[in-house]
């Protein structure tokens, strides 16, 4: 720039100073510009690095998110499994608790059952004894009543028999009287016939003999008739006595039968009932013992399962 005359030297000196300072500023600004360019380049590098890093970080974040989501999914599944296992564990605990309670209840029930069995045994023994005593008394009473009744009947029958025998003896006596009368009359007739025969013999021996035979035949027939009558009468009597004896024997047999039935049958039935009740009680006790064994086996298996689950949970937590 050429020197201007229109400007005073002071102002020119000022301008020179300003110019020099401006040059220095320009140099400084050039350095600054270089620094700026360098900085810009570095900024771009940093920006590229930032972009690359951001991309890597994004990829890493994406991968990490993917891994985290997978891990969360895995963790959720494992948590669900652990929750399930814990719920099963709590169920097992509840089952164990309930099994313990059942065991205690079974013990109590067993004790109650034993006491009930002992009480029932004593009660049944007492009841059996009292029933036997009652049955004995009843049977004795029944036997006494029936024996009295049969005694009365037998006495009555004996009285009837005595009356009948007395009647039979009276009739026999009457029949004997009649027979004696008939015999005396026959004898008288025979005597009269003998007299006639003697008279006839005097007239006709042949005819007399014939008559004699006839008469003897008549006499024989009468004697045999009498004997036959007596035999028939005695046979009737024997038959009646036999029938009466048969009746009495039948009654005695019936009485014996009734006595046997009264004596044995209810007692046998009661004893059979008592035996059946005893067998039922023994079967019930055996069932309770078997169920107690089954509960003990269930408790042992539940403990084994609980131990296996505990080991499994320890292995998963590790």
């Amino acid at each position, binding site marked *: 720039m050429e020197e*201007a*005359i*229109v*400007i*005073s030297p002071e*102002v020119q000196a*000022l*301008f020179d100073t*300003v110019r020099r300072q401006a040059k220095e*500023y320009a140099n400084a600004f050039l350095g600054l510009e270089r620094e700026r360019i360098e900085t810009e380049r570095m900024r771009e590098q940093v920006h590229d690095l930032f972009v690359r890093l951001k991309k890597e970080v994004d990829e890493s974040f994406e991968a990490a998110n993917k891994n985290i989501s997978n891990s969360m999914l895995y963790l959720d599944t494992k948590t669900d499994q652990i929750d399930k296992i814990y719920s099963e564990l709590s169920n097992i605990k509840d089952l164990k608790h309930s099994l313990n309670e059942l065991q205690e209840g079974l013990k109590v029930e067993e004790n109650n059952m034993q006491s009930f069995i002992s009480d029932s045994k004593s009660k049944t023994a007492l009841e059996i004894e009292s029933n036997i005593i009652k049955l004995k008394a009843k049977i004795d009473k029944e036997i006494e009543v029936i024996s009295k009744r049969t005694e009365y009947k037998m006495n009555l029958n004996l009285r009837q028999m005595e009356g009948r025998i007395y009647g039979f003896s009276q009739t026999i006596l009457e029949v004997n009287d009649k027979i004696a009368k008939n015999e005396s009359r026959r004898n008288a007739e025979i005597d009269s016939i003998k007299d006639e025969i003697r008279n006839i013999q005097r007239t006709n021996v042949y005819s007399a003999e014939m008559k004699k035979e006839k008469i003897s035949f008549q006499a024989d027939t009468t004697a045999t008739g009498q004997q036959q009558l007596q035999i028939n009468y005695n046979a009737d009597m024997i038959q009646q006595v036999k029938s009466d004896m048969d009746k009495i024997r039948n009654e005695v047999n019936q009485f014996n039968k009734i006595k046997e039935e009264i004596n044995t049958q209810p007692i046998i039935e009661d004893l059979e009932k008592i035996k059946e009740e005893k067998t039922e009680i023994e079967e019930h006790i055996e069932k309770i013992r078997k169920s107690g064994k089954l509960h003990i086996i269930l408790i042992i298996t539940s403990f084994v399962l609980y131990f296996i689950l505990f080991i499994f949970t320890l292995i998963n937590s590790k």
Partner: protein
Amino acid sequence: MALIKKILDRWRPVTYYEELAETGLLENYISEHLREKFESDDDFRNEILYLLMKHSKEPLPVVEELYLDKLCQSLSYFLEYTEQWRKQ
């Protein structure tokens, strides 16, 4: 272009304002007759100032004032421009 302009400047006729500037009367003439135009018309003022700087034989306070004003404006612009850096 600059060469053509230089050749044209050498061979063109001298203007009235150039003659006044060479004689040292242009400043008085402008201040007396064309002051309003000099203050309002920028092209005219630049032309006059150029002629004064080119042809005047002694220092002129108007030009000095103008240059100092320009310098002040430049420095204020510079200060304003570098204010952010100075604050840092």
